[in-house]
């Protein structure tokens, strides 16, 4: 069989029958070509989308949930409903200590603040944060540094501004690091400028100051606005959220079934949604691609069947000259596989070109929507193997058709 595949004559026969009707042969291949092109381009784009999502999510500990206090909706232990719930540092510490699978808990306070600098001013969201925040929500610093333990220990009056805030308070290209701004009448030293996140992943803020400084200037005591709970990668964040909320309800004397006492934003769940969406898209791509491929291969089979009908007499002659039915079948199957593979390879190459084009158009720079749109060699191999299998199967139909006619009848055909 292998000798047959490497025999020049085999391919001579294939090329002869291909050249016999070039236009039809080419048209036959269009279906498979389109199918594989679609598969490559869609899979590549899906990969590009996945990569760009990963890039966005790369800055977040995706296994995180944000929890904040709201108002109770059920009376409990003598408390009326509608009681305002405020979380405390003690709560945060207890969650960290008692809930299973927690990596760390980062408390945060948040408020609206008026900021003045020289003649410019504005009202911005300000958060009091721990250095640990950087591990949940990696800040992209343009200049300077993030809050450190020293700032916390000494309640330093330092502030990080978002790029947008900086633009409102400073002149263009003006150096901000080391400069002072007035926040609610107090002087704060600017230690860093960070880039605004390009997706709404979790609560965002315009300014960060040390948690302890925030506590002091707003006289917060033990109370906190938020806590960000990050789970260890091997734990299910949904379970952690449920456990933490139950503990918090217990600590704050809230009815265990009170679902409105705490608000939360589960980053893990959102991430899973997008991952699920991407998986769905990949599945769809394979489905559409393979379905188109099958349709294309059927088209090849169909055309071959017509070709066989036209070649009935030729096949009769060949059999009169001593071609065995097996030799006839083998030749037709090889032709089918050849057409399918040719179409497939051309489809893969042109699909690759389109991916290169997509990369040039949408894949450049930090804000690219499709990062490194590509398909792996494994996918290409899988596609080729599928093509060979489908081509063989579909070639068997005309092959058996060709030898089902007796040579004497085939010879009589005009």
């Amino acid at each position, binding site marked *: 069989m292998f000798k047959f595949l490497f025999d020049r004559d085999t391919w001579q026969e294939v090329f002869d029958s291909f050249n016999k009707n070039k236009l039809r042969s080419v048209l036959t291949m269009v279906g498979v070509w389109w199918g594989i092109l679609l598969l490559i381009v869609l899979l590549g784009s899906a990969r590009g989308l996945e990569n760009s999502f990963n890039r966005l999510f790369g800055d977040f500990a995706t296994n995180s949930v944000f929890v904040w206090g709201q108002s109770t909706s059920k009376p409990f232990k003598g408390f009326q409903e509608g009681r305002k719930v405020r979380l405390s540092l003690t709560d945060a510490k207890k969650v960290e200590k008692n809930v299973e699978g927690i990596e760390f808990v980062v408390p945060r306070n948040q408020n609206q603040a008026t900021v003045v600098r020289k003649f410019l001013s504005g009202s911005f969201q300000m958060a009091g944060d721990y250095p640990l925040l950087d591990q949940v929500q990696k800040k992209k610093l343009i200049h300077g540094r993030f809050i450190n333990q020293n700032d916390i220990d000494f309640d330093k009056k330092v502030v990080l501004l978002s790029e947008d805030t900086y633009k409102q308070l400073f002149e263009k290209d003006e150096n901000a690091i080391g400069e002072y701004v007035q926040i609610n009448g107090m002087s704060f030293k600017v230690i860093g400028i960070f880039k605004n996140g390009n997706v709404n992943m979790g609560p965002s803020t315009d300014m960060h100051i040390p948690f302890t400084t925030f506590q002091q200037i707003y006289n917060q005591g033990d109370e906190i606005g938020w806590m960000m709970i990050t789970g260890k990668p091997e734990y299910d964040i949904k379970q952690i959220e449920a456990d933490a909320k139950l503990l918090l309800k217990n600590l704050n004397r809230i009815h265990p079934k009170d679902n409105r006492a705490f608000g939360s934003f589960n980053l893990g769940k959102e991430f899973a949604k997008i991952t699920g969406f991407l998986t769905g898209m990949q599945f769809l791509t394979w489905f559409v691609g393979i379905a188109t491929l099958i349709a294309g291969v059927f088209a090849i089979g169909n055309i071959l069947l017509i070709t066989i009908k036209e070649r009935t007499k030729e096949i009769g002659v060949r059999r009169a000259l001593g*071609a065995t039915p097996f030799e006839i079948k083998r030749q037709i199957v090889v032709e089918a596989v050849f057409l399918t593979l040719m179409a497939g390879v051309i489809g893969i190459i042109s699909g690759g070109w389109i991916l290169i084009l997509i990369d040039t158009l949408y894949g450049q720079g930090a804000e690219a929507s499709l990062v490194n749109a590509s398909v792996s060699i494994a996918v290409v191999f899988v596609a080729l193997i599928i093509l060979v299998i489908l081509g063989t199967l579909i070639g068997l139909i005309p092959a058996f058709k060709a030898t089902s006619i007796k040579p004497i009848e085939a010879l009589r055909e005009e």
Partner: protein
Amino acid sequence: MLKINQLHKSYPIGDSSLHVLKGIDLQVEEGEMVAIMGSSGSGKSTLLNIIGMLDEADSGDYILDGLPIKDLTEKKAAVYRNKFLGFIFQSFNLINYKNALENVALPLYYQGMKRKERQERAMFHLEKVGLADWANHLPKELSGGQNQRVAIARALAANPKLLLADEPTGALDTKTSYEIMAFIQKLNDEGKTILMVTHEEDIANMCKRIVRLRDGIIMEDKKIEQVRAEQYV
């Protein structure tokens, strides 16, 4: 060389069947040149097809060169055809997208002969039919007579024991017909056994023996004085 005993063949037509060959006895020796004649429906083509292993008899014996031909599978028939028989058809039946040389080489391809040897052999036979200069031409670029000569070269290529010709001159004008017949006679002179079906008296008279069929039986079987075709060319 060829021995046929009480050969019967019938074809089903609807509910009834058409008895085409009703007990044929025929013996052909090596080096003979036999014309099988008869009107249409006499069974001459069926007889040729059975001899050519393209069709199988219902009953009777067929022995070719000492080898009983029976219970043929498609594969076995293909191998025997390739080894023992050369076919010449009325409409040449050349493969239209292959040039003369490739057409002649085709039976050798199915014998599994190596490409180079095959081409040499094919060229040798093309030279023999005087078409060496046309080796690279497609059938459509050749005249009817030339095409039939390519077909004869193809039939000879595998060096068969028996040449079977089904109305070899049926599609040719008289002059070309005689040229082809002259050629076939030459092959016979060299010792090839030839069996041909024809309905033309003048062509039949160029053979050495005429077998007449009517309604599925042999009416007449006689040796004749061969008319040489060269004198008309």
